[in-house]
């Protein structure tokens, strides 16, 4: 029997200038600010937390119900509930300094100006290591997702945020577009440092007893395993279109799922809905990645990035 030499594989990765000890970011809106999950998982064993998206003004969010569990996934329509950037900076941000992992702020907006303004104020804080620009929220009436569905708007929002900070800027794309590579190129041209691929897929459910939509907002975003093949294809295509590092996400539950995204060209992954099934998922994913690297004789996770994608343009 051949025994593989036991080394401790290097799981660290870079998303542009953002250095992560582990390739696992917790997806925006799914992990609070991290403290909610601290009783169940050692936050020092995850790469980082992407915070809930924050907007210029407070938002009460959508009417209930906001969640519908569906086969292999979840529909949500939270509607960007958040206290607005003023209260957020005043009350919430200071406690993020305690996190033993990277902290990525998430900025949402309804105008180009919002993206620049909120990014500038949030990124100015030392507790924040990087900014993710949520131009792809499907759950706010008409406006939120428009920025991710129009290359010119995506470019302007990215440029506004780029001018507002020198910290790593990750722009989050929507799968609800005809050609995602066009949007990815626009973000690259506007100076984005990385891409989060992708946000939720638009969807809905109908209550057959009440003969009415299940979600208070009627439509929602589908996350979880149900969207994984869609997200993986988006990563594959974006990896062939731009050189920017990619944070792959959409239904990643196991190390094998994470590997698919890494091999398609993602430098890191985000994990959202899988935490709702089992809060131990992110640590189990890293353990599984280590086992895979050992079994296949790789010393570093970075060596796998894009390894299955002959059209991968990025660098490892």
């Amino acid at each position, binding site marked *: 029997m051949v025994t593989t030499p036991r080394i401790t594989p290097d799981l660290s990765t870079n998303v542009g200038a953002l250095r992560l000890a582990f390739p696992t970011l917790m997806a925006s809106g799914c992990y*609070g600010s991290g403290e*909610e*999950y601290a009783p169940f998982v050692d936050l020092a064993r995850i790469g980082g937390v992407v915070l809930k998206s924050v907007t210029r003004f407070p938002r009460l969010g959508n009417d209930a*119900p906001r969640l519908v569990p569906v086969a*292999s996934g*979840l529909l949500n329509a939270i509607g960007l509930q958040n206290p607005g950037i003023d209260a957020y900076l005043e009350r919430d941000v200071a406690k993020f300094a305690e996190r033993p992992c990277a902290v990525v702020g998430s900025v949402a907006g309804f105008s180009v100006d919002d993206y620049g303004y909120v990014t500038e104020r949030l990124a100015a804080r030392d507790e924040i290591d990087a900014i993710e620009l949520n131009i792809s929220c499907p759950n706010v009436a008409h406006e939120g997702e428009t920025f991710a569905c129009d290359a010119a708007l995506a470019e302007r929002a990215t440029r506004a945020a780029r001018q507002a900070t020198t910290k790593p800027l990750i722009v989050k794309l929507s799968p609800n577009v005809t050609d995602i590579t066009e949007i990815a190129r626009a973000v690259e041209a506007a100076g984005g440092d990385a891409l989060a691929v992708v946000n939720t897929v638009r969807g809905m459910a109908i209550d057959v007893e009440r003969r009415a939509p299940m979600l208070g907002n009627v439509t929602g975003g589908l996350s979880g395993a149900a969207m994984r093949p869609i997200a993986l294809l988006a990563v594959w295509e974006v990896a062939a279109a731009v050189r920017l590092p990619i944070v792959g996400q959409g239904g990643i539950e196991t190390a094998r799922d994470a590997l698919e995204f890494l091999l398609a060209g993602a430098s890191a992954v985000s994990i959202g809905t899988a935490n*709702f*099934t089992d809060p131990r998922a992110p640590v189990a994913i890293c353990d599984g990645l280590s086992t895979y690297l050992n079994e296949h004789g790789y010393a570093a996770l970075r060596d796998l990035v894009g390894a299955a994608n002959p059209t991968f343009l990025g660098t490892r």
Partner: protein
Amino acid sequence: MPALLTSPAVHTTVVSERREPASGIVIVGLRAPDLAGAVRPGQFVMVVPPGGERCATALAPYECDGERVSLMIVVVGSRTRELATLAPGSALTVFGPLGNGFDAAALGDDVGLVAGGVGIASLLLLARALREREASVRLYYGARTAAALVGAEAFAALGCAVTLATDDGSCGYRGFVTEPLARKGGEHGALAACGPSPMLRAVGRIAVAGGVPAQLSLEEAFACGVGACWGCAVPLGRESAQAPAFPAPSFGERRDYVHARICTEGPVFWAHELRW
């Protein structure tokens, strides 16, 4: 309800028993010593689905004694169906206890408990706590049919008076349990209720009309169960001690309420403070 100082954790438990007191209602006993010591009435646990399919399921610890915690499961969909088939010896991971439970002290010494269906599961530990300090307790318990009225005897054994109701009249009052409650609810110093939303809304109306304080344990679809996703929102008056601090919205939106998380600020709220 005042915030509870419990320490939630991941618990790896083993199924020690499985009973099916009525078709579609299953009681699963778990060996879970750490959890058994930590649970307070009205709290819940999130149960990791053994097959890994979908989000964890929120369930209320039903009985809790020594090293054992049991769950009462009513089969309504794929996750409850999976949990209802767990055989003794199976491993089951749960995390919790979570949420702020009932405030038993604030209920005084003459309490009406109102249960609709599986809502009974959240009330047994509360009844025990109330009876330990010799409060007078009456249980109002409604279900579809006689066979589904599971667990009423446990309340009687604790010394609670019991009023039963069934939709089909096969046992007790014929109709909704809120109908006998409407006649007698005003006699109690306070009410505590758990069940489907339409029943809780009715209990809330009876309580507010009669000037009786009522604690309602809400049930909604949860995703995280730990306060991370804001998916389980309920409108709560800003005056509530449980209302999360939240700035007034800038334009267009109502200002007299905020969205509270049922899983974190609740699941138990004062009826008169809800704006649902």
